């Protein structure tokens, strides 16, 4: 691949990526979330989303010939197999059926004469044999007749890989975080199997966050950051610590504006053994204190549970454990209670949870304040009727439109018509309008451009400094957290991996994020 570049809606996610792979070579692709790994693989695999969003730049060569896949089918024909992060298996089918799907062996039956090829019967013994062979290649034991839905996740992953290698033409196999769902021993088997495959001449691109595996398995490693190749190096002689710093380490230019040491006065929020059942962001056991008046950062890789913490405390997903707010126990699973207690939440899911897309801006900003605190309401008939005060709503909205510089036609404009950055400001305004003592901000800069990012961060900082609002900020972007927070907790696999001051070195953060900071006894406990 030469000079690959890609823009999503004017947002550059990949720039000038070069990559060469020999037959039988294994390449480890690493990078933070959003570094462009998945996009790169999508381009390689000809995913329709790439074409729909304006195609890509650069050229790809396979066996010396230039290729340009229009669809995943073309890519499959071209000899590229892909194992996705999410399973693409049919739960109600057996292993064999899944592996052989659409490549079944068939037998002749008289019905073919009448209705054509589609009515050939399946040659199940032959299929079973073939599937068993593919599984054997991997060196694992998976029952070829077991239904996918009854399998442990590890076996599903093997089934998926078996399906890809069963194709005779496969020359290049892409595995997108195949070990994320596997246990250590299963991962070890997989690594061995992949090694075997590579020896038979198949090139492999291996994406993983577990750096140790990458070092064990790969011949060379490519580090992506912000859509650019940061480092290409042979694995021999490389250390985990080095990779971690390549991944996260960017030069820190803007030091905090006020470097005055801020002392923790008293804990305003205490979280004890919190668990949250949020799909994809499960929190298992988290305990921490937030001090009054600080900006507390929560970081970590996607899917490790950092978002679950805020959603759980705000009552949006089922949660348990103990949360103490200003010395009193906070009732969990009660969004109204949390808001009433003086907390507010800017959701990471801006369009799904954060906004009423079809309603005007003033509704979006004033709604929560109205419902929770009874603002923008007029009492009629001695309080019997709570009448909505449109004038008050508009003026409240206008106040924040001016304060945050929300670009819009008027406060009556519908939220869906705003750009991402302005929508995010509306979300912030909604939270500010409640006048919270504690503000949770989840991924405040996701999907907005650099200028808007700075504005959003400045606004958060301002609120903290001038209004004394305690802020808990959750973000995948470590640099962002380091630039604004006082202390940063890193969450890994639903547990707190560690807590560092914002001035700690980048490598330390990187190690915590990748789970390498855990002591051996903790690692054993997780598995």
């Amino acid at each position, binding site marked *: 691949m030469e000079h690959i570049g890609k823009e999503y809606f004017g947002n550059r996610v990949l720039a000038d990526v070069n990559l060469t792979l020999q037959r039988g070579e294994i390449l480890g692709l690493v990078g933070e979330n959003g570094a462009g790994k998945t996009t790169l693989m999508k381009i390689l695999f000809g995913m329709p989303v790439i074409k729909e969003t304006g195609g890509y730049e650069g050229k790809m060569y396979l066996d010396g010939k230039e290729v340009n896949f229009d669809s995943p089918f073309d890519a499959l024909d071209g000899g590229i197999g892909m194992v996705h992060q999410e399973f693409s298996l049919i739960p109600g089918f057996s292993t064999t059926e899944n592996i052989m799907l659409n490549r079944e062996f068939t037998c002749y039956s008289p019905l073919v004469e009448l209705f054509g090829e589609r009515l050939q019967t399946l040659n199940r013994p032959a299929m079973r044999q073939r599937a068993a062979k593919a599984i054997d290649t991997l060196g694992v034991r998976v029952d070829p007749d077991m239904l996918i839905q009854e399998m442990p996740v590890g076996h599903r992953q093997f089934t998926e890989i078996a399906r890809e290698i069963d194709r005779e033409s496969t020359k290049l196999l892409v595995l997108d975080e195949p070990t994320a769902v596997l246990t250590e021993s299963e991962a070890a088997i997989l690594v061995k199997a992949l090694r075997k495959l590579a020896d038979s001449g198949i090139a492999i691109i291996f994406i993983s966050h577990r750096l140790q595996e990458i070092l064990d398995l790969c011949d060379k490693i490519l580090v992506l950051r912000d859509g650019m190749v940061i480092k290409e190096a042979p694995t021999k002689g490389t250390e985990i610590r080095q990779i971690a710093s390549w991944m996260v380490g960017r030069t820190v230019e803007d030091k905090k504006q006020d470097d005055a040491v801020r002392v923790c006065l008293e804990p305003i929020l205490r979280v004890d053994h919190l668990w949250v059942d949020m799909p994809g962001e499960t929190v298992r056991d988290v305990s921490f204190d937030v001090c009054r008046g600080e900006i507390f950062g929560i970081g970590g890789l996607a899917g490790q549970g950092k978002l679950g913490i805020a959603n759980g405390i705000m009552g949006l997903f089922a949660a348990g454990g103990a949360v103490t707010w200003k010395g009193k126990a906070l009732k969990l699973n009660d969004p109204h209670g949390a808001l009433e207690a003086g907390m507010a939440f800017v959701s990471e899911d801006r369009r799904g949870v954060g906004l009423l897309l079809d309603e005007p801006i003033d509704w979006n900003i004033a709604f929560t304040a109205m*419902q929770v605190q009874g603002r923008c309401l007029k009492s009629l008939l001695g309080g019997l009727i709570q009448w909505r005060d449109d004038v008050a709503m508009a003026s409240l909205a206008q106040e924040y439109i001016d304060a945050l510089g929300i670009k819009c036609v008027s406060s009556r404009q519908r939220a869906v018509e705003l750009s991402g950055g302005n929508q995010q400001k509306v979300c912030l305004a909604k939270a500010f309008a409640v006048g919270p003592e504690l503000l949770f901000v989840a991924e405040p800069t996701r999907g907005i451009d650099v200028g808007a990012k700075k504005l959003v961060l400045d606004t958060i900082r301002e609120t903290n400094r001038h209004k004394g609002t305690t802020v808990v900020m959750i973000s995948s972007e470590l640099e962002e957290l380091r630039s604004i927070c006082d202390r940063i907790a890193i969450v890994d696999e639903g547990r707190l991996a560690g807590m560092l001051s914002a001035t700690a070195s980048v490598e330390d953060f990187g190690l915590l994020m990748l789970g390498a900071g855990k002591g051996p006894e903790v690692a054993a406990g997780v598995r």
Partner: protein
Amino acid sequence: MKKIRAFIEAAGLPRVIIGGFLVLLFAVAPLAQISVARSVSDTLVRMAMNGVMVLALVPMVQSGCGLNFGLPLGIIAGLLGALLSIELDITGFAGLFFAMGVSLPFAAIFGYGYGLILNKVKGDEMMIATYVGFSSVSLMCIAWQLLPFTSPIMIWGYGGSGLRVTVSVSEHWLHVLSDFLSFQIGNFYFPTGMFLFLAFMCFLVWGFFRTKIGTAMTAVGSNPEFARASGIDVDKMRTISVVLSTMLGAIGIVVYQQSFGFLQLYTGPFYMAFPAVAALLLGGASVNKATLFNVIVGTFLYQGICTMTPSVINSLLQTDMSEMIRLIVSNGMIIYALTRKVQVKR
């Protein structure tokens, strides 16, 4: 051309087509020896008759429960109220308001249960609502036979038990609302009372959606996740909207009956929901947003077609096309609305 296109976009294609068709019907009416004044008057009467039932759909649409295909539930509550009023032999306005008043608690109870069901089937409300409506009608077919009503007006002449299929209200409160302050100019009759009543109901609904709770309901319909994150009890709001819809349905049918002259029991309420739904959609509402403007415009257009096609088309073509056109328009409109995603601008 651009202006025309902009107009069509603003008004919505179906409204333009049906509106044009209606104008055409009025234009050719004189050719078929039909009085235009009379036709307009008929259209208005039917519009006022059906208006409250169309209005009854609005709360559920606004709260995100979809179109209330379970309207027969409210209608049954209204029928119960009307029957009790006749049974107790209360006449005039007293009888009418007694019927409405008694039907409301029934409607509230039915609506509450109906709301609980709909909260369990989020995402499939409309299909489940259809079945709730149908099955309640069937259940009531048994009830109409067994309920111990005794008024000779409404029980079968033979046997002496069980309610008739249609019960006349002519001796009690026929046209009491229609004729209130009504006037007649030549062939043109205007049912002032019904329109005042419709306006009053519209005012109540408008007012409701401007209260705190009404605002919360709109937000639930617009984005339930947002509402929940703002501390709103989504299920409670949905239940309230269903209760409200059912209660309005009950009042709607009583208004309808006093103008129509009969209570239609047994399978009468079966298909009552469809014309109301079609009218609302014709008015430009979508599955999750409806305004009072949609209600008024939609009811006028739909009832206009229903009034004009039998007289005009039949006398011009000498065939009974009206029923077919009515079915194509009403069911076609529902299908159209369910397939499209964007709503018209106002």
